[in-house]
């Protein structure tokens, strides 16, 4: 199974090169891969519906006890099939939809990578792996939304989606880590079988909040739903695949997967149900106001995600069963409708529903696909959407009145929305569109027609998907489930409820303009609200980042140095005083000869004179005195080589100083008294620190010096009597080579700076 998940990444990386071999057939060839995966998953169907989940583990980070484990149970299989089957159709479709687009290879790269990541999300049993795949879907989604990267709106939408889902992802990471810590395992199956520790822990509400933040942002629940309609900037195949059929369902999947682990509590019930109910109603209402075909579909997708969330929140057997049926129905009709919308856009050049009409004559095949999708979405028999809605109503009526009302109102609105998106562009008089429409090539109608056929087939024979859906519900509920789906339940209250919904839906559709006017007052609140907060938050982030940069990256060297020196001095002083044995320091003044005293005092005076010098020449003179005094110290303590070098270099430096700074302006007093005092304080702190360090360092000797080796072998191995020289040219010869190189580079730098002619003349 690891091959099934990870081979997608390999193919994704190869895709751009493979594309160049045969641009014309690449789409069809790539679509064979998800098709093969779909067959692979289908081959496991029998075992999985019999209740035998396939579980494989591979060692991942054994040192940390992490395993890469995959678990194919009913829920995973349902999602994996949705991902691979829809993936096959999408990739076939995209080859024609984006035909000739210069970035098509990149599209294949990201869409295949997304598919592999999504499979990883729904099959991982390990929380960490799940999180990694989860983030990969966010990132690939970012690239796919921003596919038309030369458009401002596409880039903004991509960033918005990434920021919203990415923030949720971070919360999820914290939640997942907490779950692993508290529950004692990172395997979901292990946590599900023993969830007492999690439920009893005082951090349980926090874990829930973090997981919800991840799931709700990903599945676009109110108030985070605004990113999904914006994400319609993506090419239509992407919208159909990521933002309807698969990725946005990851949040729903997560809630379903975690409900045996975290679910069953009152918080879970009220929060998940509440968010779901609010989302389904608010976004179904917002869908009515859209004129862009894709945005209508996007808002209705959000509404369905809300429905699924609410059902998982309710968490009883009927609700979970209904969620699985509804989910499958949605995948079948919504992906089809998106592909239809893409075809319409592709063929007519517009997605504005006000400009579309009468397309049934010019695009008959697409019209058939659209009609089935729309009727299924409206919940009409004999399509699978009807079965889904019946299951939904059954679950809701068994629960309570409030959710039933919300469910009926939402279905009523979605009925009207389905008509608006799937029927109206094809009915009525033909309209004038930017392009002259006709049916697209087979690659572009295959998807809607195939999914439409499934909608009809499963609608007429609901027993076909029954076992898979039972297995999926079973893995959420943690027990065996045998559900019976039927198109015809006889005359019962549910049928009445359905009929009422249809009647109300027709009423809404016929009076959609009037309804829009009447409820217009509520629109700004729901539409502008969260996306406006997002804009404000983004402005705040930019503002605070700019502020921090102004404070920290202020461009004043003295402030940088002052900060570094102060921090170093404080930390080092603290460490020395806290750790070092200051008692070992002995001030031995007795062994200092008179000449040493004189030299010491001269150095001190000269170095202070350098600092206090009012003219440049005095400063350089004093600096020279310091340099020569250092050389004399070398003479006193047995280092004639150093002394010689120091004398030479000091002389050279002095000449250079005078030579260069002859042209510089005289010293000015820039700093105020306060600044000078502060800098004196910092300097003194650093200086005193070094005095102390020298005293500590000379009082201790931890290791035997390696100089003995050099002393013993200098003549025998290096054939030299001056040990310092032998070290430089022999024992540490490469260091000296590096040093010479540095000097040469500095020399070249000096030479080129002098020769460089800046300003008017241009280069020299």
């Amino acid at each position, binding site marked *: 199974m690891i091959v099934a998940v990870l081979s997608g990444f390999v193919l994704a990386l190869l895709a751009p090169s493979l594309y160049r071999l045969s641009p014309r057939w690449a789409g069809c060839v790539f679509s064979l891969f998800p098709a093969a995966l779909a067959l692979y998953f289908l081959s496991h169907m029998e075992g999985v519906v019999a209740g035998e989940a396939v579980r494989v583990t591979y060692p991942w980070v054994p040192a940390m006890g992490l395993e890469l484990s995959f678990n194919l149970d009913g829920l995973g299989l349902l999602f994996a099939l949705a991902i691979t089957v829809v993936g096959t159709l999408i990739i076939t479709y995209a080859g024609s939809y984006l035909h000739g687009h210069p970035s098509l290879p990149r599209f294949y790269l990201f869409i295949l990578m997304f598919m592999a990541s999504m499979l990883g999300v729904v099959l991982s049993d390990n929380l960490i792996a799940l999180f990694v795949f989860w983030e990969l879907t966010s990132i690939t989604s970012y690239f796919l939304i921003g596919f038309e990267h030369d458009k401002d709106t596409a880039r903004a939408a991509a960033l918005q989606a990434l920021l919203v889902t990415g923030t949720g992802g971070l919360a999820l990471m914290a939640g997942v880590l907490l779950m692993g810590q508290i529950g004692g395992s990172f395997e979901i199956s292990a946590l599900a079988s023993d969830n007492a520790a999690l439920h009893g822990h005082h951090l349980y509400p926090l874990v829930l909040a973090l997981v919800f933040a991840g799931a709700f942002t990903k599945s676009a629940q109110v108030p985070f739903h605004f990113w999904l309609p914006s994400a319609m900037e993506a090419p239509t195949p992407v919208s159909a695949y990521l933002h309807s059929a698969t990725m946005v369902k990851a949040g729903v999947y997560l809630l379903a997967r975690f409900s045996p682990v975290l679910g069953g509590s009152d918080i879970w019930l009220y929060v998940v149900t509440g968010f779901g109910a609010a989302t389904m109603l608010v976004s179904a209402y917002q869908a009515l106001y859209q004129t862009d075909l894709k945005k209508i579909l996007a808002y209705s997708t959000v509404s369905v995600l809300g429905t699924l969330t609410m059902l998982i929140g309710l968490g009883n057997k009927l609700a979970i069963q209904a969620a699985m049926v509804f989910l499958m129905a949605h995948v079948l009709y919504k992906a089809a409708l998106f592909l239809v919308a893409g075809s319409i856009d592709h063929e007519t050049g517009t997605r504005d529903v006000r400009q579309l009409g009468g397309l049934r004559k010019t695009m008959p095949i697409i019209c058939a696909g659209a009609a089935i999708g729309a009727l299924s979405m409206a919940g009409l028999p004999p399509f699978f959407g009807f079965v889904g809605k019946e299951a939904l109503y059954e679950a809701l009526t068994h629960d309570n009145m409030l959710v039933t009302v919300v469910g009926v109102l939402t279905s009523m609105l979605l009925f009207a929305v389905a008509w608006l998106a799937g029927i109206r562009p094809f009915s009525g008089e033909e309209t004038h569109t930017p392009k002259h429409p006709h049916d697209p090539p087979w690659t572009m109608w295959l998807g809607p027609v195939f999914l439409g056929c499934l909608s009809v087939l499963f609608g007429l024979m609901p027993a076909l998907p029954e076992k898979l859906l039972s297995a999926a519900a079973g893995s959420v509920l943690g027990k065996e489930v045998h559900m019976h789906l039927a198109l015809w339940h006889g005359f019962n209250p549910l049928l009445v409820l359905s009929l009422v919904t249809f009647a109300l839906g027709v009423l809404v559709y016929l009076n959609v303009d009037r309804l829009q006017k009447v409820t217009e007052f509520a629109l700004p609140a729901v539409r502008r609200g969260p996306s406006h907060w997002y804009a404000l938050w983004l402005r705040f982030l930019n503002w605070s980042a700019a502020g921090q940069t102004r404070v920290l990256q202020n461009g004043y060297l003295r402030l940088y140095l002052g900060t570094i020196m102060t921090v170093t001095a404080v930390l080092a002083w603290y460490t020395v005083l806290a750790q070092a044995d200051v008692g070992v320091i002995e001030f031995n003044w007795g062994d*200092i000869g008179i000449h040493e005293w004189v030299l010491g005092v001269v150095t001190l005076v000269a170095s202070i004179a350098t600092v206090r010098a009012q003219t440049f020449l005095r400063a350089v003179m004093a600096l020279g005195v310091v340099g020569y005094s*250092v050389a004399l110290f070398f003479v006193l303590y047995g280092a004639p080589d150093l002394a010689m070098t120091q004398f030479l270099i000091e002389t050279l430096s002095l000449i*250079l100083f005078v030579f260069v700074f002859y042209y510089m302006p005289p*010293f000015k007093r820039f700093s105020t008294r306060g600044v000078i005092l502060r800098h004196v304080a910092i300097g003194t702190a650093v200086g005193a620190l070094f005095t102390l360090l020298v005293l500590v360092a*000379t009082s201790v000797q931890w290791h035997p010096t390696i100089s003995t080796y050099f002393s013993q072998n200098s003549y025998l191995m290096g054939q030299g009597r001056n040990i310092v020289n032998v*070290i*430089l040219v022999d024992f540490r010869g490469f260091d000296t080579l590096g040093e010479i190189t540095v000097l040469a580079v500095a020399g070249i730098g000096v030479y080129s700076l002098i020769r460089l002619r800046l300003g008017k003349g241009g280069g020299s």
Partner: protein
Amino acid sequence: MEALLAIVIGVLYASGVYMLMRRSIVKLIIGLALLAHGASLLVFTAAGLTRAVPPVIPFGEKAITGTVADPLPQALILTAIVISFGVQAFAMVLAYRAYQTVGTDDLDDMKATDT
């Protein structure tokens, strides 16, 4: 004798750090030079001072017999002196050219990248 040198090193570091924080670019380079002297003496002193003879093997001998000054820190300092000279020379010329171009030796006026 370590006590005396420790104080000398401390004063060199203090004045070097102080000069590094001046606004005049000339003073900054002088600070660099002071810091380099301080660092040389620091390595020299920290390794242990002796008034013994230089680390040279007398003629006729194959290895050191008596006490000599430690050769290793001397080799390190030799490198340090030369490198710091290279850095200072480059910095001086750079400051000079910057002064010619920008027309000021005040670091605060050299903040912007496009002057």
